């Protein structure tokens, strides 16, 4: 344990916690987390994980910051419009906590690169905004036996679950992506900005709990909330051995309206 005086102060509120303590904070400082997508979910997750001192944060996103993102993607600020999202995020992370090493990848997670990208990380956060990507993250993590947190939001609703090898995966709950255009996307249906923060921070908390090895994760449980009524509930789910057998990765069709027209 080699914390500097500054680090001792910075992480003191963690160190005080019996379930985190010196050892837990050391684990956090040694951990590597990949956040797929630096949008509504990835933004708050990245901010809190950086603040917590996660040693290495990988961020992957192929997009640039758009004016419409600013309503909920709180890691990006008005002057960042037009800037690659990963660069904008990297700058904020460095400001929050210069101890954190950031691997910024300006690209999309695809079947051909997914395994290679996730292999260096201890935990993966799914902060993507479309079904093909969500299934790809799931499949890649199951194949590589990497724990990950699934998350999704739409309108006033959110859902999340955590996978660690041996527990139910996202695919155990939802067999395959819905047909393109069957489910509206955020850009069509809208999203209540604050719920991105609610869900992204749950995902960050799950990642940190996994790293320190304390508490009960959202494994074999799907957490669903409705922010309009402010109701939370968890649904028990079971691993389905058939759906945990993944032997190759596929790039599913993207909803037509989501493909950039330019």
């Amino acid at each position, binding site marked *: *344990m080699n*914390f500097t005086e500054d680090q*001792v*102060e910075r992480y*003191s*509120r963690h*160190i*005080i916690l*019996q379930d985190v*303590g*010196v*050892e837990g904070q050391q684990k956090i400082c040694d951990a590597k987390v990949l956040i797929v997508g630096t949008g509504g979910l990835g933004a708050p997750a990245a901010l809190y994980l950086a603040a917590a001192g996660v040693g290495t944060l990988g961020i992957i996103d192929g997009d640039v910051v758009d004016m419409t993102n600013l309503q909920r993607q709180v890691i990006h600020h008005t002057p960042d419009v037009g800037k690659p999202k990963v660069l904008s995020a*990297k*700058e904020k992370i*460095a400001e929050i906590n*210069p*101890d*954190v*090493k*950031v691997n910024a990848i300006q690209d999309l997670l695809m079947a051909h690169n997914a395994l290679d990208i996730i292999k260096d990380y201890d935990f993966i956060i799914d902060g993507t905004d479309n079904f093909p990507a969500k299934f790809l993250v799931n499949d890649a993590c199951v194949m590589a036996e990497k724990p990950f947190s699934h998350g999704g939001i739409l309108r006033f609703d959110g859902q999340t679950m955590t996978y660690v090898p041996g527990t139910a995966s996202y695919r155990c709950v939802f067999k395959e992506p819905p047909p393109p255009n069957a489910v509206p996307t955020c850009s069509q249906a809208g999203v209540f900005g604050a719920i991105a923060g609610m869900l992204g921070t749950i995902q960050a908390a799950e990642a940190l709990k996994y790293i320190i090895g304390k508490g009960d994760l959202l494994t074999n449980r799907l957490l669903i909330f409705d922010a309009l009524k402010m109701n939370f509930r968890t649904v028990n789910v079971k691993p389905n051995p058939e759906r945990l057998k993944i032997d190759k990765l596929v790039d599913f069709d993207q909803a037509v309206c989501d493909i950039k027209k330019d």
Partner: protein
Amino acid sequence: MPLTFYKNSDTLIAEQDQFEKDIAEFVNGDMDPVKFKAFRVAHGVYEQRQLDTYMIRIRCAAGGITPRQLRKVAELAAKYGSNEVHFTTRQEVQVHDVVIENVMNVIRGLNEVELSSRGGGGNTIRNILTSPDSGIAPNETFDVDPYAVALTTRMISEDDSWNLPRKFKIAMSNSKEDTAYTQATCLGFVAVEKDGQQGFEVYCAGGMGAKPMVGHQLLDFVPESKVYHVTKALKIMFDKHGNRRSKFSSRIKFLWKKLDREEFVSLFREEYDKIKDDESLNLSLETIPNGYQAADIPVEVVDSSDYDLWKTRYVFPQKQEGLVSIKIPLQLGDLLREDADSLCDFLEKMGENTIRCDRAQNMRLRNIPEKYLGNLYNVLSRLGMTLIDYAPFIGNMINCTGAQTCKLGICLPRGLSDAIRDRLEVSDLDLDSITDFRLNMSGCPNTCGMHHIANLGFFGKVGRVDGDMYPAYNVLAGATTGAGTTTYAVRQGDIPAHFIPDFTYDFLKVWIERKKDETYESYNHFLDEEGNVLIKELCAKYKVVPAFSEDPKFYTDFGAKARLSLDEIGTAECSAGLFDMIDVDKKSIKTNIKALNAGEGDEQDVLYNILFAASRMLLITRGLDVKDDVQAFKLFQKHFVTTNLVDSSYEDLVRLGEDQNKTVLPTHKDRILKLAEDVNALYSNMDDSLRFKTESGDVIEETAASEVIKVQEHDFRGVGCPMNFVKTKLVLATMQSSEHLKILLDDGEPIQNVPNSVQLEGHKVLSKTKVDAYWEVLIQKA
């Protein structure tokens, strides 16, 4: 017989023969690198940062080396190393860049001139230092060199000097001015006179390093005849009570901290009183003649302003009339082979006792007749690589070798030193007005560059911008030296490496002006009133490093070929030994059990490996070194099974190993695993002095157990809530279960909160005692 500064032990040649075999075994791949490290470091052979390249450190007691010896070292450096003799900050010399095949050639070559690298590293009595002007200084109390020489010869002949808990450093000063820095070393002797009798004031438990401590007075006076008795008593006490478990807190300074003055002194006295009246132990001192020894050679007359300037800068009078001493400032401590030869040609005519190494990586010449100064100047001006044309300030700068050769280094202080020199050389500063200024640099928090005793010091750290690392240094200032008055430099801030030359210029400009105006009574007075604030302001001025994309130069250290990287940083070479070797077997047990569970490998081989590792693992704690498997089983049987350290029912199992009867091992699988478990348990119950708790039966067990308890002490007064609790947790995290921790807390909120919080985490609060306005709390780790 030629003059030497110590006499090698009678067993040295046999030890070298053994080491030669060890090297061969290592080169053939038959010896684990960790085990080899323990052997080679004890022979003063350190691995450099470049793979398979070694440095050899040569003992020079009292910093003394004769021209004949220096010539030989230079010859060996040219033949097998980097062509340079390196002068260190510990008054000894080193040969660098030696490949493994040539290590023995260097070591055997040294024998020809009675020099040795034995004890250049490892947990032993290291090179004994003295004031570099001892024996010639006009104002000295008396010459301490003969004591250092006799003590070295005695200590390196004693078997019990070679396996101490950690290194043991000794220094001797010829006056209270303490130019040997006795308070910054494990054991220090300062020459004093009391009632007309010559003797020493004794300091101990000082040390620099990452956790610097100033030494304490152990004895206010011992007669000069007791030097050996004091050293021997402290050595025995250190051997008995020093902490062998953690190489990071094993130096004598930590023992003092653990025991407190009273107990430390009483343990010392216990040993000292046993031997102090035994006059047969007195050292046999031989005077080292300081006097006119030169042959008659023609006098060369030099008449130039450069010569006059050199004389005022580098020539000093001796107490012996007509003789002078001369300082030769070396560039980064290096002397080229050719330069060594030319110098030795001249010095051999001047006598044997003419060279000392000092603590600033420079050479000191002595006993040179004043009339031959012109001759010497002509020799020096023809040398390829010295700093005689620079102001003494430049040559006095001290730096460690840094990350170029050292595996621990972060920064490259050699490059920084050059950069500072280049910056100051073209400046308007009058460096001759600050001749004695000590500017010291270390590449990492270890103190090879002696930054703790600096007037202005730097030690390396890593800075980061956006996760990109750049070389940086912490800035310290304001050490005081002197027997009984030593204080270390205090950290004032940090600064990127590339700004240090400008920083140094800015800072010295102000100090030189103030010094000229006599504004302050001393440098430290200047610091208190103005200097420390100035340092902080300059650190703020030179704080901002441009992003890598804007100016990459900041990210590459002075003299480095590539960007700063910490990939190759290793662990300390010097503390190799016992525990690393135990770990080899511990790991072997673990990986073999894993293989066993996974069904990998041949079951009987895997079980044999476990049985063997379990048997060998702790033999080293009994001082037993084994050469082959069968011997390991035999020794384990004798020292562990028949003594009941492990259950005697394992006898037949160990015999199977001894008989190499592998085929039946699978039927004893469970017992083999249990034995491995028992050995591991025995190890975790071992105390600092390598005793096992169950060793001597029940009654002893109780005393042994109570002796085992280590008490760490930390002062958290002035630390507010909740940081005091955070810091307590940090300390507890480094401790073993059931060890004790004593903390000091302020009254009020801290004492109301911290003990409760500690208890809530499962630890025991053994006592809370109010002392004056604060509290002492004793905690036992859960």
